[in-house]
């Protein structure tokens, strides 16, 4: 992606956008196509998805066969650059030394941020998910409803390309007809869980993911997305035409050089760049938002990591889309550490992650299957949307919110680790061991609970008063706490997984140290960090209004997941984009009135 040095920056931009992932990418896309001059600041380096993505490389080609290391936490071929659970020169701290009270913070320092490696699962929040407090008295309602955001979910799905089906299930919205791309066929593990889940009342259906299963129809879609804007139509149509459909090989976590899946660097930034209205500065580590005497945001102060110098850029509006934790950090470090947009005192409060709990099951009926290509779309094909709303409403459950189940493929490419759990090798070597590997490979199914966490007072982030990063900027200190809702959910998921595997004639492999309530992943580990600057209808009880604007500084917008007032089981990325597009439309309207 072309970037500029600070010396080439304009004296002032319409909008300065901090972050280049789902939120920053969407803002840049929408604003530049409407003619606004934008500067995007990315803390990491630039990244060329076409030239750098390791398509088809095998374990033979990689150090340690590509298995994970402290340098590459999700394996050698994961797209993440300069990121992971730790980032060089940028520590974070924990308020507690107990693991269950800590938050593991995944960051990426690269153009496109975490969108380069994410799972591409693109689910809409349902109507209930915007009004959770009204339904069960827990957490907070959003100031918007599903109907407010629906048009933007549709726009996002048309732009990024999402496969899936409309199933008409409760609180699991259908997309308008013709919007979704066709789902890929079920893999054998998907069909196994589907068949046997049914016996237990667990519905299993095609998931929604941002992967093109057929070429995008730019001629049709671009005018629908950008009516009355011929130039935008031309650019978007061209960008869509240059994306290929999935060729059913190489996992999406590597990124996609043929641009079949969504990442900010394949879908948002290229058309934004083509408008000529976008400048990007890489290696720009933002310290604070500059606020004028009139109380408005004037721009951003950042460290140029290539020189170590402090630099300032000006904008008529400022968008923070740096990730929840990083956006909170910038807000709290602004005004020389006094913090901004924090009259409510809620900046950093109500950070949420997703409840994660998984299980590996072994199914004898899948042993010794004929070899066949199970790679598929490079991620999930099927999932199980939450199915017990009625039981919850009737007070029959010991947790308040839902989870969905993600089902993985069964015959993935071996990369550095044994392709089967090594207990199947017990007592064997030679041809008998190879026969065992052949027999059991493909007979293991991994299922994962992804569930709603209810915001609580004990899960928040603040500035550490002692520790700073390499550039002297105070770092985040995390506090974490699960409530019984989350722990009971994890137990329910474990029991459900075990029951499904048994119904399929197999069994779940349970780690004796991690069962029931203990089987919950640690805070942050699902990498769905949301909240920290929640939106609401009351300026005393929230940081942002329904347009992602901070109550205190109206030309300062938060366009990552930090304004989320709840974290439904639906993966946050599509909602980040829909909210950002909606906020951008509002900003464009204000710009047209000369009121930026």
């Amino acid at each position, binding site marked *: 992606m072309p970037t500029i040095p600070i010396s080439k920056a304009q004296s002032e931009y319409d909008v300065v956008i901090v972050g280049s992932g789902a939120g920053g990418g969407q803002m840049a896309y929408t604003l530049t196509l409407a003619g606004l001059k934008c500067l995007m600041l990315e803390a990491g380096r630039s990244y060329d998805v076409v030239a750098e993505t390791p398509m088809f*490389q095998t374990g033979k080609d990689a150090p340690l066969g590509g298995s994970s290391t402290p340098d590459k936490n999700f394996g050698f071929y994961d797209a993440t650059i300069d990121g992971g659970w730790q980032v060089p020169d940028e520590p974070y701290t924990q308020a507690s030394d107990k693991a269950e009270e800590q938050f593991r913070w995944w960051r990426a320092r690269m153009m496109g941020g975490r969108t380069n490696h994410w799972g591409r699962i693109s689910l809409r929040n349902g109507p209930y998910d915007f009004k959770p407090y009204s339904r069960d008295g827990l957490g907070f309602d959003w100031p918007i409803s599903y109907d407010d955001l629906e048009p933007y979910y549709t726009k996002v799905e048309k732009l990024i390309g999402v496969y899936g089906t409309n199933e008409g299930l409760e609180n699991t919205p259908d997309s308008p007809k013709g919007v979704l791309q066709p789902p890929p066929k079920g893999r054998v593990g998907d069909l196994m869980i*589907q068949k046997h889940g049914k016996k237990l009342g667990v519905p299993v259906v095609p998931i929604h993911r941002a992967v093109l299963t057929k070429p995008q129809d730019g001629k049709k879609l671009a005018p629908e997305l950008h009516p009355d804007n011929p130039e935008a139509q031309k650019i978007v149509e061209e960008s869509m035409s240059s994306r290929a459909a999935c060729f059913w090989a190489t996992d999406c976590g590597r990124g996609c050089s043929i641009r079949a899946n969504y990442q900010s660097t394949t879908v948002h930034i290229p058309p934004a760049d083509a408008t000529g209205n976008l400048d990007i500065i890489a290696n720009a580590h933002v310290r604070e938002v500059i606020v004028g005497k009139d109380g408005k945001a004037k721009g951003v102060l950042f460290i140029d990591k290539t020189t170590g110098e402090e630099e300032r850029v000006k904008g008529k509006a400022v968008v923070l889309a740096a990730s929840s934790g990083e956006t909170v950090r910038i807000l709290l470090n602004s005004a020389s550490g006094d913090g901004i947009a924090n009259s409510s005192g809620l900046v950093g409060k109500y950070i949420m992650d997703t409840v994660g709990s998984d299980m590996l099951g072994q199914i004898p009926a899948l042993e010794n299957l004929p070899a066949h290509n199970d790679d598929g779309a490079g991620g999930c094909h099927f999932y199980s949307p939450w199915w017990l709303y009625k039981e919850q409403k009737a007070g029959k459950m010991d947790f308040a919110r839902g989870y969905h189940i993600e089902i993985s493929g069964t015959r993935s490419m071996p990369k550095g680790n044994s392709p089967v759990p090594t207990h199947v090798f017990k007592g064997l070597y030679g041809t008998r061991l190879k026969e065992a590997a052949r027999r059991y490979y493909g007979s293991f199914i991994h299922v994962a609970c992804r569930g709603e966490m209810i915001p609580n007072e004990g899960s928040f982030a603040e500035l550490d008063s002692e520790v700073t990063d390499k550039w002297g900027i105070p770092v985040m200190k995390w506090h974490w706490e699960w409530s019984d809702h989350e722990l009971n959910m994890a137990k329910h998921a474990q029991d459900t997984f075990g029951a499904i595997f048994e119904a399929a004639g197999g069994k779940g492999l349970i780690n004796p140290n991690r069962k029931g309530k203990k089987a919950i992943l640690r805070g942050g580990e699902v990498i769905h960090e949301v909240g920290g600057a929640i939106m609401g209808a009351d300026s005393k009880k929230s940081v942002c209004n329904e347009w992602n604007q901070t109550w205190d500084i109206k030309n300062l917008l938060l366009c990552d997941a930090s304004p989320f007032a709840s974290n439904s089981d639906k993966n946050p990325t599509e909602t980040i984009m829909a909210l950002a597009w909606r906020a951008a439309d509002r900003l464009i309207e204000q710009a047209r009135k000369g009121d930026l």
Partner: protein
Amino acid sequence: MNSEEQENRLPRRRVLQWFAAVAAAEGLSIPTTLAQAPKPAAEGYGYDPVLNKTYERGEVWPLTFTEAEKKAAVALADVIFPADELGPAASEVRVADFIDEWVSAPYPRQQNDRKAIIPGLKKLDEECQKHFQKNFADASVEQKQAACDEMAKGNHFFNVFTSIAAGAYYSDPKCWRALGYVGNMPIGGSFPGPPEEVLKQAGVEQTVE
């Protein structure tokens, strides 16, 4: 009675005792282990390695096996993954070099495995010397198998070695067929899904058109 005959009459109980000693090698005190196996001083590949290239074993950090360790590792990997109808021998896909890269890596998981592998390989040769007057690599097929028969009953070194070797072996595309992995191939059009015979054997039906 020559030594070959002696080997063939080896009481299984005695072999068990010898290779129990191999298992115990992992329990050696840390300083002894380090004296035998200098800790690699290398750095990792860092947070931004070039991804779309082919790496040679030893390219990112130096390999550290001694000649003797390498010989033992090559021989042991070939007993665990021999050439047969399912696929090539471990030596053909350089499994021992992978294991060398693994135990030479500066990361905690690999350093931990090194504590089992290096003393284990040494002990394997020592036991073979004691009883066969040969290193493991030079032992007969029967002798090697006798050793593996015992170690396969439950031996930490052998389990760790087998686990790393399995990761190495099946990561090579030449060994995918042995496992039944047939992906990493671009396919035009829509995803074909599992073939009919697979669905039939698994007792499921395709539900997506």
